[in-house]
């Protein structure tokens, strides 16, 4: 497995999401700060406008009362250096301008004050009000005078002051204009400052996050690399981390795990090697055993041929010279040599099964069984055994001779142990179709085999003592060898007196049709 670069790395996620609240917070903070500051600036402007207008109106009372333009001009002149001042206009109640000033035009004679730029039309109403236009703040303040009535009754009473409540009368208005330009400049300054501070804060937050995340993520990446290496079977590079946090603990656990894995892998490899050696030894000794069995049986056969031959010649050529006992003895010799011959043949067969090359071909199992039954027919008919074969026996891809041997041995065994007093001797042959295996069976209702013999029946030279039966007892050993060689299994299901079923499986190594096509 190759170590793949993650599409959304941890570092990216952290770097993206950790500064996000900081960004949002600083944006919100700066916007509220800007808003608040702007409001304050504006409020200060309004207050400034009102204060100047009120001051002017206070000083203008006399000038208006007597309509003394020079006095009014003097008052205006004292205010012309007010910050941001655009204009001052003083009117009487009939809206006639008595004095005026414009920052653009300077002090003006009454005659020239007809058109001061930016001066909005004053509105009536409250005592002092401020309106805001795009360029300026315009403040208008009424100029009032208080006419106090004297108490006629107490005219002579000097100690009696004026009535506390006097008549308030509007005698004119003072209108001033304050330019917004410097305010706008300072507002811009505020905004700019706020933006710079915000941007700085955000940048700092992101940089710090990236840095911190880098420190945190690098060990994780190291761990991931190490895990990747382990998955490729590299156990020789433990993770080394300088940090002293949870990830370090994790890395240490990881290193221990890796060491354990390495140990068990080495052990496994050792076991595998040993197993390989043992298997090799086993198969070599098996081969040796086969060769030994072959040689021994072969060498045993030659003297047996002689024994048989001479005893046969003895009977045929000198039979007349022997009495009944003598003839019987020779006969016993012949019978025993014959039996020994069969034993040797079976041993040879057993070794041959281990050595012979498979010759696979499509084999119709029902055909094989029919052949076997034909061969065994005389004996089976004599026994009166009923034979039942499942109808649709399969066609398998296997070695015909060996399949024949299997069924021949199993059926003749079944017949051998069918029982002398069996009233309805029956042998059944059939199969079950599995996914990868055919499971064949040969079932009889004979004397059965006690469970304690179930393992040993497949051994060499195992014949059950309970029945005096012909044969060498090597049949099942041969069958087991064949089935084992073909990668199948063989087992027995039986109990004393309950009949016997021999099961064996043959793998469906490949579909017959596939094989035929392949050839």
């Amino acid at each position: 497995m190759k170590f793949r670069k993650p599409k959304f790395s941890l570092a990216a996620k952290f770097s993206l999401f950790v500064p996000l609240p900081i960004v949002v917070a600083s944006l919100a903070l700066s916007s509220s700060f800007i808003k608040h500051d702007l409001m304050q600036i504006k409020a200060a402007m309004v207050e400034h406008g009102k204060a100047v207008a009120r001051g002017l109106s206070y000083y203008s009372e006399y000038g208006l009362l007597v309509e003394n333009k020079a006095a009014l001009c003097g008052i205006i002149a004292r205010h012309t250096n007010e910050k941001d001042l655009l204009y001052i206009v003083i009117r009487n109640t009939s809206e006639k301008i008595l004095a005026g000033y414009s920052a653009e035009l300077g002090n003006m004679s009454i005659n020239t004050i007809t058109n001061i730029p930016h001066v909005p039309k004053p509105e009536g109403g409250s005592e002092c009000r401020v309106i805001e236009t795009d360029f300026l703040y315009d403040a208008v303040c009424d100029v009032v005078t208080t006419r106090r009535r004297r108490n006629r009754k107490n005219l002579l009473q000097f100690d009696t002051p004026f009535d506390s409540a006097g008549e308030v009368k509007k005698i004119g208005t003072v209108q001033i204009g304050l330019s917004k330009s410097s305010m706008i400049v300072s507002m811009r300054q505020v905004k700019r400052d706020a933006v710079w501070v915000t941007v700085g804060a955000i940048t700092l937050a992101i940089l710090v996050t990236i840095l911190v995340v880098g420190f945190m993520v690098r060990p994780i990446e190291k761990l991931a690399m190490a895990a990747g290496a382990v998955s490729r079977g590299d156990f020789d590079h433990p993770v080394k981390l300088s940090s002293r946090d949870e990830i370090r603990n994790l890395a240490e656990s990881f290193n221990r795990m890796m060491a354990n894995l390495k140990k068990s892998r080495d052990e496994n490899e050792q076991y595998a090697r040993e197993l390989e050696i043992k298997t090799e030894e086993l198969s070599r000794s098996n081969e040796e055993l086969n060769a030994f069995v072959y040689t021994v049986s072969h060498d045993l056969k030659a003297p047996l041929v002689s024994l048989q031959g001479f005893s046969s010649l003895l009977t045929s050529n000198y039979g007349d010279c022997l009495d009944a006992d003598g003839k019987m003895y020779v006969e016993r010799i012949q019978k025993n040599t014959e039996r020994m011959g069969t034993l040797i043949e079976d041993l040879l067969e057993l070794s041959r099964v281990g050595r012979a090359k498979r010759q696979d071909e499509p084999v119709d199992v029902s055909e094989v069984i029919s052949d076997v039954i034909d061969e065994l027919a005389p004996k089976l008919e004599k026994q009166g055994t009923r034979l039942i074969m499942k109808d649709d026996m399969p066609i398998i891809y296997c070695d015909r001779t060996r399949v024949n041997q299997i069924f021949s041995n199993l059926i003749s065994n079944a017949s051998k142990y069918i029982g002398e007093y069996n009233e309805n001797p029956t042998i059944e042959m059939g199969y079950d179709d599995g996914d990868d295996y055919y499971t064949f069976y040969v079932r009889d209702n004979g004397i059965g085999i006690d469970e304690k013999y179930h393992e040993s029946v497949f051994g060499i030279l195992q014949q059950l003592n309970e029945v005096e039966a012909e044969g060498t007892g090597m049949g099942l050993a041969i069958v087991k060898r064949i089935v084992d060689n073909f990668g199948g299994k063989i087992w027995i299901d039986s109990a004393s007196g309950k009949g016997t079923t021999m099961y064996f499986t043959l793998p469906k190594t490949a579909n017959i049709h596939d094989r035929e096509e392949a050839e």
Partner: protein
Amino acid sequence: MKLIDILLVEDNPDHAMLIKKVLENHRVANKVYVAENGAEALDYMYHRGKYGNGSDAPRPGLVLLDIKLPKIDGFAVLKQLKSDPEHRSIPVVMLTTSDRDEEIAKGYAEGANSYVTKPVKFDEFAEKIKSIGLYWGLISSLP
């Protein structure tokens, strides 16, 4: 029918005796000559060594050849006979104790005409030897 002479190449004296007996009993052969090993068999065929003068070694009508032989084995003898134009026409029947397919196949490949396994049952063996002798005797006596 004119009886043929048979050369039996067999190292086991018992088997040689039995086979000779069978052949004589059933009057299959005129005379059976026995060679105990491959070298002796070739000496017989080429009139060498103790068969030097050639008079005790008539040309056989059939060779019964055991495969496992000391000195020179059956296959070598078979190969020699079948590669010699003079002896190629003499039928050779292999005698084996086993029926190992590879041995039999090898024998046929070297030019053997037939083979007989030695079964444990003597009667069976006798029957086989008899029929082999009669068959090849008949074949070789044909003009």
